[in-house]
């Protein structure tokens, strides 16, 4: 009966009788082929991010805002500090126009010359300047402040935190005491004091500082001085746990230098925490900048920022309430989108953090 060459089976043996099996056909083998393309960590998390509807929504909003602030100044023929002129003459009737309105002089001019002037999408302000372009520039300033301040925080925080965490021992203890002290400083008070000083001191300087707007620089300096400590603490904590891994020991034993170990072996493993913290730093920087501008310590006039626009709008709120709406809405939209994107990034990059 047994056609195979197997030795006779003991009745109590657990050995498998091969005769009871048949070979898989080619088609059946192919069914097992479910291997997908190999995917990197980054690709994986981006896929997750794009499955999150809120994150996608915020990316769309942010991209739309960025496109508008890049291209609007090319399309709109008005400048952010330019007082409206009709036929080369200052247009005194163009003060405080409503959205999409034209002033009397402009209407007359259009009728006489049979041309179409570019509409004032958000109206004009109390100095006859096009409000739309001011909001666009204000958004530019606010976003730039948020972005660059976060980059500064990122660089200082990562450098400091990784040195402190990697060195350990007394160096770590000393460096962390400094962080503790800065961390417990009431940040807003120090920011206000420093920005007053920097504003006054650098106000007289010329050249590149004057061009960039001294207040913007002072905000960067303040951020660079104060806000890196949170990042430094996080990075240090991450490095303390990552540096115990075997691959770090292996790198050390083949003679890699500390700088290379930190850069090549440790930091890539802390990348998700760093990205998430930076993404969430941007809205907080925008918040701080708008707060400072609101109390008159932000960017210098005539350069607008969303906070200073809101402050000017507040003074005329009884007559022109919609003027507060545009900058306020813009701040809320940007901060909301960045917060949601940060949350989405956290969920995508570091599922452990999600609760």
């Amino acid at each position: 009966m047994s056609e195979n060459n197997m030795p006779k089976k003991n009745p109590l043996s657990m050995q498998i009788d091969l005769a009871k099996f048949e070979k898989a056909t080619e088609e059946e083998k192919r069914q097992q082929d479910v291997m997908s393309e190999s995917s990197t960590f980054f690709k994986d998390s981006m896929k997750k991010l794009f499955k999150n509807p809120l994150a996608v929504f915020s990316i769309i909003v942010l991209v739309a805002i960025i496109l508008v602030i890049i291209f609007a100044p090319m399309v709109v023929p008005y400048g952010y500090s330019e007082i409206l002129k009709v036929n080369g003459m200052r247009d005194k009737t163009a003060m405080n126009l409503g959205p999409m309105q034209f002033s009397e002089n402009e209407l007359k001019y259009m009728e006489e010359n049979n041309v179409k002037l570019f509409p004032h999408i958000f109206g004009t302000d109390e100095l006859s300047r096009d409000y739309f372009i001011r909001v666009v520039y204000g958004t530019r300033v606010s976003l730039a402040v948020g972005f660059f301040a976060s980059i500064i925080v990122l660089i200082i925080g990562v450098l400091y935190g990784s040195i402190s965490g990697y060195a350990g021992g007394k160096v770590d203890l000393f460096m962390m005491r400094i962080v503790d002290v800065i961390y417990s400083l009431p940040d807003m008070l120090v920011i206000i004091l420093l920005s007053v000083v920097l504003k006054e001191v650098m106000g007289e300087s010329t050249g590149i500082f004057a061009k960039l707007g001294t207040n913007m620089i002072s905000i960067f300096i303040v951020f660079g001085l104060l806000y890196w400590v949170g990042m430094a603490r996080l990075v240090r904590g991450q490095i303390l746990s990552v540096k115990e891994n075997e691959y770090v020991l292996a790198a050390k034993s083949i003679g890699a230098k500390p700088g290379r170990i930190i850069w090549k072996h440790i930091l890539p493993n802390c990348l998700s925490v760093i990205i998430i913290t930076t993404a969430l730093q941007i809205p907080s920087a925008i918040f701080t900048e708008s707060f400072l501008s609101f109390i008159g310590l932000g960017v210098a006039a005539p350069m607008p920022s969303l906070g200073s626009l809101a402050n000017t709008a507040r003074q005329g709120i009884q007559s022109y309430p919609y003027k507060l709406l545009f900058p306020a809405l813009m701040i809320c939209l940007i901060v909301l989108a960045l917060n949601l994107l940060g949350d989405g990034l956290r969920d995508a990059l570091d599922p452990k953090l999600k609760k």
Partner: protein
Amino acid sequence: MAKYVVKRVLLAIVTIFIITLIAFFTMNAIPGGPFNSEKASSPQVKAALEARYNLDKPLLTQYVIYIKGLLHGDLGISTKTGRDIGETIFESFKVSATIGGMAAVIAIILGIVFGSIAALKRNTIVDRIIVFLSTLCTAVPSFVLATLLLYVFCIKLGWIQVWDANSNNFLLPVISLSMYPMSYITRLTKTSMLDVLGQDYVRTAKAKGVSQRLVIFKHALRNALIPVITYVGPMLASILTGSMVVESIFTLGGLGSKFVTGITNRDYPMIMGTTIFLAILMVVMNLVSDLVYKLVDPRITFD
């Protein structure tokens, strides 16, 4: 424990000392002094005034004099109004403390309630609404909210008098100050509540047949509130800084507006006084909330 407390108190003292240093020297680095803008004051008058406030001495001596006075509880005299700084701060702090205290209490209570509801009714419409609103509120700066409230309730609807010096109507300022911390606490409570509800001891309590209410209040909420305690310190800081603009929007003479006008007037003793007062307040609140945090949660070790 004792070692930790001593360490933290020492750190707090060092912090406050550093703040006096920063405040004093940055303040003096602002160009222009308190008596420069005074019009038509003769050099003699100016010199006499500066001598009275010790402004003629070297900076370091001024600092030592100030610290000596501070240790005796003397905050100096305002260079603008000539009034005692300690008194001015105390008076304006009453306003700030009333608004800030109310805002803090409202934020904590409502935040915990909304957060717990959102966690317990997870994935229902109630949860979605609470999460949506709290996310929205964390994106609205307090000055925008304050201005909008002022516009809607005072100007449009006319329910509340706009500029009334004697009015004790703190409703709008309190709302605009409490919104942000409230939404933050809501989100914080929700995540920690969800975390706690998944813990084994909650399941055990449910399995024992403990009533739903007892499970929530005795087992879940008490543990879920631990992260909220750590936020109380930073929340106070955010309310205090937020009150700077909210006070000026609603024209209340609180501590924050004293600080801002002090800066514009170069009123050195006023800047120093308000900064040190606010700084001590924040540092102490942070210290207390950290210590309480470690006290209520025995799992956290002192290092």
